[in-house]
């Protein structure tokens, strides 16, 4: 009996000790005990939905050169070559300082406006350890109109030239195809043309991205002017863009009823009517330069 129990013990001991690991056992060694926070990437393809800002920032250490260009209204006929004789342009640079902070400068041809901007990510959409359903950012800019003053007798201050855009960018990437964004906006103009015009213009922007293929997407953007003098005199801005991503570049080809490119111009100053054919064609080209290589990229 004693011998028998000894044999049983030995048998089980050998069984447990015969270290035959399956490939699954090896794979299971990699299982993470602690969940990690996984941040959502590519809510939008670039830093703009069409004309307005998206929640995307330039990556840290990356400098983006942006050429924003659009033509005149298509319905002007052959004499204006369907708007192609007219051009409005903005050249800009954007730089990512950290994953949540970026700055930008630029100059738009409309009213010869220089601009400086800042975009701050407050929350990032994520899952895993930290679950956050939305990305929440602030965008602010200041525009400086540098047109010459025609009437030298006027008492004209520098501050008269300033306009400001303040936006909250609230976006969610629902799945790989659909991302949506709400953009409550306040545009402040230090000086307006007429006494009746508003210095503060409130607007609610909405936009979305719909991926068509892995490399192309359709973007929609609408800015609704809240009731007021501006809403009475101007129209809401509506733009549709087709984005093509080619390796390291993004091209956005769009149609819009807005002549302005900067927020202070297109949100508050759109006169075009889509239904009457006041539609213009434009494009955004971005070229990214790596100023600082990311950590972990070395041999």
């Amino acid at each position, binding site marked *: 009996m004693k011998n028998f129990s*000894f044999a049983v*013990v*030995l048998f089980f*001991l*050998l069984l447990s*000790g015969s*270290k*035959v*690991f*399956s*490939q699954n056992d*090896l*794979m299971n*060694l*990699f299982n993470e005990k602690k969940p990690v926070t*996984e941040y959502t*990437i*590519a809510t939008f393809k670039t830093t703009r939905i069409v004309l307005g800002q998206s929640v995307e920032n*330039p*990556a*840290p250490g*990356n400098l983006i050169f942006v050429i924003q260009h659009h033509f005149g209204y298509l319905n002007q006929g052959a004499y204006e070559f369907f708007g192609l004789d007219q051009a409005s342009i903005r050249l800009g640079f954007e730089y990512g300082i950290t994953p949540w902070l970026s700055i930008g400068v630029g100059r738009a041809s409309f009213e010869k406006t220089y601009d400086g901007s800042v975009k701050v990510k407050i929350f990032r959409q994520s899952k895993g350890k930290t679950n956050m359903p939305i990305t929440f950012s602030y965008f602010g800019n200041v525009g400086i109109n540098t047109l010459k003053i025609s009437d030298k007798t006027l008492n004209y201050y520098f501050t008269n030239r300033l306009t400001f855009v303040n936006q909250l960018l609230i976006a969610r990437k629902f799945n*790989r195809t659909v991302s949506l964004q709400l953009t409550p906006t306040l545009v402040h103009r230090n000086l307006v043309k007429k006494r009746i015009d508003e210095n503060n213009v409130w607007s609610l922007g909405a936009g979305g991205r719909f991926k068509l*293929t*892995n*490399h192309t997407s359709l973007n929609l953007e609408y800015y609704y002017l809240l009731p007021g003098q501006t809403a009475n005199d101007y129209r809401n801005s509506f733009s549709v863009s087709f984005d*093509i*991503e*080619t*390796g*390291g*570049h*993004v091209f956005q080809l769009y149609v819009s009823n807005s002549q302005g490119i900067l927020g202070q111009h297109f949100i508050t100053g759109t006169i075009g009517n889509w239904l009457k054919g006041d539609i213009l064609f434009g494009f955004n080209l971005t070229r*990214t330069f*790596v100023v600082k*290589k*990311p*950590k*972990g*990229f*070395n*041999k």
Partner: protein
Amino acid sequence: MKRLSVLMSLIILLAFNAFGQRYLTKTGHIYFYSKTPFETIEAHNRQVNCALDVKSGMFVFKVLMRSFIFEKALMQEHFNEDYVESDKFPNATFIGKIDNVKEIAFNKAGTYNAKVSGTLTIHGVSRTVHENGTFIVSDKGIAAQSKFLIKLSEYNIDIPEIVAREIANEFNIFVDVDLKSLKK
């Protein structure tokens, strides 16, 4: 009493047997490289999981696609979003074995050539592969190195025509992992 000592020595023997049989790393390095006259694509992943059972020769890799770091962040985003679709297929895996495991003395320092075969899964597509590599055994552990080619088309990774001249179909993959004995 005699039996007990036999039992004890067996336990000790088995315990030692298990010790040093499996080797592991979670910080292995894999990088890939492709060059065309228009674009060089290079990305590094330094969080590669790799495990080796020196007794059976079983050899496995698990590679989180999002851990590949590109010089251009935009390229990294496109890699994850549009090419390998890492939301659908977060990991690449290799499950295989060393075919000539008997020729490699894992308990003796030296450099050994190895033939490895198994199933490589990238972008949800599994393929049987046979590759050559090197094991370098030292008192610090076991280093494994390999270099091989993969064709993107074999893993259903589409290259749109507009970038076809910038992205080669063939990618050089470099594997460099330092495995440490698993003490458990």
